[in-house]
């Protein structure tokens, strides 16, 4: 289209009966650019902080497979994406100046020919969400590491995942993914992230606890060097160090590396080892065997098993069974459905470890219970059950 001239602009002003003296001298003549109708441009509404990140040159990534809802990830946060419609038309105009910018510029009667790059009547809205990390564990559990002697690794046809692979498959930010890898005690073996097969993990742990016992080391001061020396012939050194990092707190004393063993985590692992061999256990029998099975000097407590096992106080005798929170659904409604399918009525104390991870940034367990459950009194105790009939 021909570009408008000053004369044409002035003529239009005259027809419109606008007084040029009341207007700034510069005018934008807006036309539609060649790509305008193409629909290749879209708008993304930015949550606080994201604008600054982009201006600092950092990336935002949209992640999701075909069967997943798209999420947007910054370096350390994850957001759900949703289309918001508006009844108005939104035009995006490059090079369009505001009155402040024009005044600052103090140009004379210039015509600024601006091309509208695109237009839309909707935009992407973001809402901060929990990173979708269940898939991470699922991927790594496809092929747990069973140790160097395992035949499996040599002939394995399963996918193994590098950090890059995980970044492209998991709907979470890089920091959230790396943090979760640490939480689940994953380790990098030959460049791939692996989770240890539980039996192998217990085997490694037993090497360490037996050594602690035979050396009579205090549980709070286990020397790394000696462990590597004594156990290096049995298992790879990286695995020995990994198990110490997983089950202990590393510190340096006088230039030497030590570990303060984590009593709760060790007791918990031994409980899991015992419980996974049966559907359920007589509670008092279990507690006896469990205490006998943990290293000398450690004390077992039922609260060490939150999110791992559940006590059934209604059965006679009382029983305990394995119920791992990481095996339950990730979606809020599905999680509650699953929990109410396992047990009809829950006390807040019992259910909290199984819904804690669902809490959004400032959300409480109480708020979740209000939303997804119905409360009632049972024998003077407040209990929660499903809002809907369970089929």
């Amino acid at each position, binding site marked *: 289209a021909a570009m408008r001239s000053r004369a044409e602009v002035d003529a239009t002003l005259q027809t419109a009966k606008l007084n040029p003296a009341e207007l700034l001298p510069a005018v934008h003549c807006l036309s539609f650019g060649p790509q*305008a109708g193409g629909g290749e441009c879209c708008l993304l509404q930015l949550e606080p902080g994201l604008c600054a990140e982009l201006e600092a040159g950092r990336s*935002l990534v949209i992640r999701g497979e075909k069967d997943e809802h798209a999420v947007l990830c910054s370096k350390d946060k994850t957001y759900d994406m949703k289309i918001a419609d508006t009844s108005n038309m939104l035009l995006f105009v490059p090079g369009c100046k505001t009155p402040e910018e024009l005044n600052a510029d103090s140009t004379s009667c210039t015509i600024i020919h601006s091309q509208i790059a695109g237009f839309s009547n909707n935009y992407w809205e973001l809402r901060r969400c929990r990173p979708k990390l269940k898939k991470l564990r699922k991927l790594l559990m496809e092929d747990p590491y069973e140790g160097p002697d395992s035949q499996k690794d040599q002939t394995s046809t399963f996918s193994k995942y590098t950090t890059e692979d995980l970044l492209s498959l998991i709907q979470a930010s890089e920091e959230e993914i790396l943090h979760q890898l640490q939480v689940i005690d994953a380790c990098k073996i030959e460049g791939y992230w692996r989770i240890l097969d539980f039996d192998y993990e217990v085997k490694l742990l037993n090497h360490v606890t037996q050594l602690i016992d035979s050396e009579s080391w205090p549980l709070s001061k286990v020397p790394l060097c000696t462990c590597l020396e004594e156990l290096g012939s049995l298992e790879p050194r990286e695995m020995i160090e990994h198990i110490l990092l997983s089950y202990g707190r590393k510190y340096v004393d006088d230039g030497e590396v030590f570990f303060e063993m984590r009593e709760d985590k060790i007791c918990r692992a031994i409980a899991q080892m015992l419980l996974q061999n049966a559907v359920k256990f007589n509670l008092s029998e279990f507690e006896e065997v469990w205490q006998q099975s943990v290293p000398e000097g450690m004390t077992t407590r039922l609260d060490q098993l939150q999110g791992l096992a559940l006590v059934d106080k209604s059965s006679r005798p009382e029983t305990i069974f394995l119920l791992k929170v990481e095996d339950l659904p990730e979606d809020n409604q599905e999680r509650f459905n699953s929990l109410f399918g396992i047990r009809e009525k829950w006390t807040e104390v019992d259910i909290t470890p199984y819904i804690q991870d669902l809490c959004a940034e400032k959300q409480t367990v109480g708020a979740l219970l209000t939303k997804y459950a119905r409360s009632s009194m049972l024998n003077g105790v407040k209990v929660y059950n499903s809002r809907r009939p369970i089929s």
Partner: protein
Amino acid sequence: SGGAGALAQWVLVELQGEVEPRQSRGLAGSLLGDLHYTCEGVPVLIVGHHILYGKVVQLEKPFAVLVKRGGAPQPSPAGSHGHYTVTALIKTKLLFKTRPKPIITHVPKKV
């Protein structure tokens, strides 16, 4: 992703209703109208036979303009969403909500 170098700052123009091409050849290349500002900074848009008065709004939540690039095919287990590039940021909008004042071009002369 954000690219190297400063991101361009664009402006959003928000109009009521739909934009339709006057001619059948489509929108690309056609004129929308003239955008003026009064000395007080009020945006005035002349579109066809209408005058629209608006206001300059600083957006509480800025927008990023995403341009879709065809996703390059990748062999490894990669996400299948196309790649988007952030082309510009929008922190300001010109909001035209007032009813357009029609421009009357032919005033019958008084006899």
